[in-house]
């Protein structure tokens, strides 16, 4: 094959099914975000007062954590996609370490979120406290469940990558998991300013 010709990359990357999941998740969270914005307009003062009870520092740290973990996953996928026959073992080991780091960050995110939840519950805040906390708890708990699933997925990806289960030409599973994690990250990037910051 002439040098200027390359094999067309399959598009979109990852399994097609994950894109259906991505769109459904974006739609569902989008409805919740829209519901939040609509309800906030009706009772601005109550939303602003309630927002003060949130810990913005933890929210910010969690944002950095998720963005960093997404970066680590990109590094893992890149490592596998750029591997050659000679360095495939080394590439898999390095990629698996990136994935392990991303997973550990995911676990730290969950732990920080749990401390936030327990702090709010100690103050007697529940879904029924007011509309702000209903949305806050619904959105963040729903997101928490997604991160938990993501950590399990990352664990499996790490395990398979370490065992050289992915190669330059066969890494759809890895890309699929990576897309899911980016989705989880993207949702948080919208959720954090919307719920924690915007006043």
């Amino acid at each position, binding site marked *: 094959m002439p040098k200027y010709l390359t094999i067309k990359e399959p598009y979109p990357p990852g*399994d097609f*099914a994950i894109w*259906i*999941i991505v769109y*459904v998740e974006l*739609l*569902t969270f989008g*409805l*919740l975000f829209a*519901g939040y914005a609509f309800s906030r307009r009706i009772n601005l003062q109550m939303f602003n007062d309630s927002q003060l009870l949130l810990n913005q520092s933890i929210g910010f740290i969690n944002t950095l954590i998720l963005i960093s973990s997404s970066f680590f996953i990109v590094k893992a996928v890149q490592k596998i996609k750029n591997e050659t026959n000679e360095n495939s073992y080394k590439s898999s080991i390095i990629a698996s370490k990136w994935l392990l780091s991303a997973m550990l960050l995911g676990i730290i995110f969950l732990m920080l979120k749990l401390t936030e939840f327990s702090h709010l519950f100690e103050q007697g805040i529940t*879904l*029924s406290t007011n509309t702000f906390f*209903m*949305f806050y708890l*619904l959105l963040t708990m729903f997101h928490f469940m997604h991160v938990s699933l993501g950590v399990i997925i990352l664990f499996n990806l790490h395990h398979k990558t370490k065992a050289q289960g992915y190669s330059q030409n066969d890494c759809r599973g890895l890309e699929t998991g990576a897309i899911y994690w980016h989705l989880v990250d993207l949702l948080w990037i919208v959720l954090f300013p919307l719920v924690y910051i915007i006043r």
Partner: protein
Amino acid sequence: MKYSSQMVAKPYFIFALILLAGEIVFGLAMGVQYLYGDFLFPAIPFNVLRMVHTNLLIVLLLFGFMGATYFLIPEESERELWSPMLAKLTFWVFAAAGVATILGYLFVPYATLSASLANSFWPTMGREFLEQPTITKVGIVLVVLSYIFNTTMTVIKGRKTTISVILLTGLFGLAFFFLFAFYVPQNLAMDKFFWWFVVHLWVEGTWELILGALLAFVLIKTTGVDREHIDKWLYLIIAMTLISGLAGTGHHFFYIGTPGYWLWIGSIASAAEPIPFFLMILFAFNMAKNRRIVHDNKIALTWAKGTAVVGFLGAGVWGFFHTLAPVNYYTHGTQLTAAHGHLSFFGAYVMICFTLISYAMPILRGRPHGNGPKSQKVELTSFWMMVIGMIGLTLALTVAGIMQIEMQRLPDAANAMGFMETQAAISTVYMVRLAFGVMVFLGLLTYFYSFFVKEEKAVA
């Protein structure tokens, strides 16, 4: 037929069809009562007809699922059924209990039935769809447990496939959620709350897993598409079903005394409920398009595609019409709910039973390639009669619902018409509904006739 034990499915299928005929007859009688209130009165009042109509539906679907499972599981597991004898015994016990219960409903006043069967000892009677006496409910549990045990043992000892695993998950879910039929809290809001654990989590949760597995089985058999390809679709559909269906229970918790957050959870989660049904359409038509074989039993594939489309319309589209809390505030319990209920039960569950019966019955009757062309033509006619009849009936009920909302729900208390007054005002629409109901029944009779069509013998 690959395994002789698949034969146990036959009586289940036949009995399910007989019960369906009964269900439609009682439905038609109710349709007449909507027009002539004293029809069959006092012999069979409306509430008894309704109870028989809905209970027959549930029992016929259980018979259909059982027959489908007993046909499917040996093929999926590549071995004979663990105990064909247990399956036969279960059939007779369930059929006898079912018939006795229906006769009880028809010939004994419900209060007397309740008192004579010691309902006060463990009160579970009187709730919509779950009117069965406690003793019948215990019988259902035993029957379902023996059915699940038989199926599980077969799967454990044989090949495990995605279809059999998802089917079993659905069956375990079905058994688990039925346990809430035995829990009847004193508080009316709590009573309704847990009642939906059976009703919603059956039809919009666990039964959808059963539906997905059965549909996938028939599609594999009639299209020859790779199992790997079908499995992926199935997992996607099941994931969507569980995510939207479980949280979607919230759409039943609007304005019944439950906390206000259910308005949001129910609205948003159930707005996503049409998605798995839409995926089912893509699934069925994609498989049909990419088929690797042309099966002689064409009508089975027609039923499979029909299940996906009508299921989506009934459960997805008609469900969505009134699933958002602000809309449901006005539509709750009107004929719009009845429209959704009819088309979703028919499209998703009755039609999947037809799909399995149309695929399996010819094989059980010694025709591995399906019925002959003449018989399939008659069956196709019955397919369209029933589908058009049900869609017509649904549209009529939708119009009735909209009129009811307009007259009874939207105006303020001073100007709103009363329930009976509204019913009288929409009686013309009920006549149309009844006519389409008759069409469905004639379609079913045509379906029965397709079993007896004699094919012309080829001249040598």
